[in-house]
C-alpha cells in the first residue's frame, strides 16, 4: 500500500534523473564543442606564427612541402572538380530553364547561372571536393603519425609539429582554394552554357557575352573571399582531428570520418553566415 502511494514520487524522481542526464550530456557536448573551437584557434595562431616568423626562429616552413601539398590537395583535385562543377552548372541550367519557362523567361537563366555560380556554387563545390578528398587524407596521415609516435619523434627532434605538418597545408590551401574556385566557376558556367546552347538556341559566343555583361567584380570577390575562409577551415578541422586521433585503427577511422563531416558542415554553415553578412 505504501509503495503505491509513493509511486508518483518515484516517477517524478526518475524523470528528474533522466532530465538531468540529458542536460549533462548536452552540457558536455557543448564543452567539447567550445574546446574544439579553442584548439582550432590555437592551431591557426601557431601555424600563422611559424609561417610569418619561422625563418627568424630557425624553423622555416619549407617551400618544398608547401609545393607538394599544393600538388596533392590542389592539382590532383582538378579532374574530379571539373566534372562535378560542369555537371552542377548543367543541372542548374536545366532546372532554371524548366522553372522559368512557365513565365516565358527562360533566357533569364543566364543571369541566374552567372551570379549563383560565382557567388555561391563554384566555391561550394570546390570546398566540398577538397574537404572530401583531403579532409580525410590529412586527418588520416596526421592521426597515423600520432599513433606511431612520429609526432613525438618530431617534438624530441626539436621540430614543431605544427610548423612541419600544419603550416604547409595552410599556405597550400590559402593559395589553392581561390585557384580551384576560379576553375570551378569556369567549368560550372561552361556546363550551364552547353545546356543553354541546346535549349535556348543561342551560340556559345552570345552566351559568354551575356555572362560577362552580367557579372560584376563584386560577384567574383564574394566567391573568392569565401574560398579563403573555407581553406582555413578545412586545414584546421582536418589537422585538428588528426592530432586528436586516439584508439588504434578504429579511432583512426572515426577521426577521418569526423574530419570530413565536420569540414563539410563547417563549410556550409560558414557559407550561410558569410552570405548573410555579405548580402543583407
Amino acid at each position, binding site marked *: 500500500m505504501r509503495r503505491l502511494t509513493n509511486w508518483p514520487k518515484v516517477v517524478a524522481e526518475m524523470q528528474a534523473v533522466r532530465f538531468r542526464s540529458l542536460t549533462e550530456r548536452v552540457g558536455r557536448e557543448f564543452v567539447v564543442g567550445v574546446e574544439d573551437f579553442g584548439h582550432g584557434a590555437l592551431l591557426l595562431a601557431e601555424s600563422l606564427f611559424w609561417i610569418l616568423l619561422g625563418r627568424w626562429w*630557425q*624553423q622555416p616552413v619549407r617551400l618544398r612541402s608547401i609545393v607538394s601539398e599544393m600538388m596533392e590537395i590542389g592539382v590532383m583535385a582538378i579532374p574530379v572538380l571539373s566534372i562535378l562543377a560542369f555537371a552542377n552548372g548543367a543541372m542548374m541550367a536545366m532546372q532554371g530553364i524548366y522553372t522559368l519557362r512557365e513565365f516565358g523567361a527562360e533566357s533569364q537563366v543566364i543571369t541566374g547561372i552567372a551570379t549563383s555560380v560565382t557567388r555561391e556554387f563554384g566555391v561550394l563545390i570546390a570546398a566540398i571536393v577538397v574537404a572530401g578528398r583531403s579532409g580525410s587524407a590529412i586527418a588520416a596521415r596526421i592521426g597515423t*603519425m600520432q599513433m*606511431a*609516435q612520429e609526432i613525438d*619523434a618530431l*617534438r*624530441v*627532434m*626539436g621540430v614543431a609539429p605544427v610548423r612541419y605538418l600544419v603550416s604547409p597545408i595552410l599556405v597550400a590551401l590559402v593559395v589553392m582554394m581561390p585557384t580551384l574556385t576560379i576553375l570551378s566557376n569556369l567549368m560550372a558556367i561552361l556546363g550551364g552554357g552547353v545546356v543553354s546552347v541546346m535549349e535556348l538556341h543561342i551560340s556559345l559566343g552570345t552566351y559568354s557575352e551575356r555572362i560577362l555583361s552580367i557579372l560584376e567584380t563584386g560577384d567574383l570577390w564574394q566567391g573568392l573571399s569565401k574560398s579563403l575562409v573555407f581553406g582555413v577551415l578545412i586545414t584546421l578541422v582536418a589537422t585538428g582531428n588528426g592530432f586528436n586521433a586516439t584508439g588504434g585503427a578504429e579511432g583512426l577511422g572515426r577521426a577521418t570520418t569526423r574530419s570530413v563531416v565536420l569540414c563539410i558542415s563547417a563549410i556550409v554553415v560558414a557559407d550561410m553566415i558569410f552570405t548573410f553578412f555579405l548580402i543583407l
Partner: protein
Amino acid sequence: MTAPAQYPQDKVIEVSNLVTYYGRQKVLDDVSLDVTDGEIMVIMGGSGSGKSTLLRYLLGLHRADSGVIRLFGRDINTLGSREWMQIRRKMGVSFQGGALFNSMTVGENVRMPLREHTRLDESTMRIMSRMKLEVVNLAGFEHLMPSQLSGGMLKRAALARALVMDPSLLFFDEPSAGLDPVVAADLDNLILRIRDAMRVSIVVVTHELESAFKIADRITVLDQGKILMTGTVDEVRNSDINRVRNLLSRTYEEQLVDADDYLRRLTDGMD
C-alpha cells in the same frame, strides 16, 4: 685547467619528487632519480608501472604536475623554446616502434635532424647519414622505405636517426620489445658499443630482465608509480625487497581483496 662542469657531479639528468597524474589517477608518485655522465641507466618495471610515462616526462613531452626535472643542469619547466631546442639537439630518442617517418626513405629519415638543425650541404648530410647507418649495420638500406624493414632493422634505423646529431644523451624505449632473442641481444651489444665509442649517457626503459642486467650500470625499479630501488646490477639482483624479488623471479603477486571494497565496486553507480 679543465672547464668546470656546468652541472653538479656531471649529472645529465636529475629528477626530484616528480608527481604526475593521468586524469585523476596518480601515475608517478614522488619519483627521484639521477643519471650521471656516461652511464647506462635502465628503468625497469612491469606493465603499468609508469616507466613509459616517466620517459615521456624526461623527454619533455608533458609538463610535470609537481617536482623538478633537470636536463644538463637546466630545469626543463623554465626553459624558453630556443633553449629547449638547444637541449633537444643534444638528445637522441629511439622510440618503441622506431617512429620513423613512413613517407620518407630510411636515409631521409636519418638525415632529417641534420636538415632541420644544420646548414650542411646535401652530400655532407648524405655521408653523415651513411656513417650512422654503418654504425648500426644498415649500410646499403638507405633507399628502402620503413615499411620494407623488419622489426629489428626498424629499431636500428631509428637508432641511427637518434645518433646522427652526435647526442650526449640517448633514450631507448623498450629496445627489445617485439624482437626475437637473438636480434634483441644484438641490439643490446650495439647499445654497449655506442656507449663505449661515443661517451654518451643512455637511459633505457625496458621490462626485459635479461637485457637490463646485461647493459645496465645502474637499474631503477619502478612499481605502481613509485621507485622501489635504484642500484647497480648486483644490488638489484641481491635485493631483499619483496616486490623486487617477485619481479625478478616473475612471481605473480596476489592482491588482497577487501570484501567491502569489492562489493562497492560491483554495485557502483546503481541505486
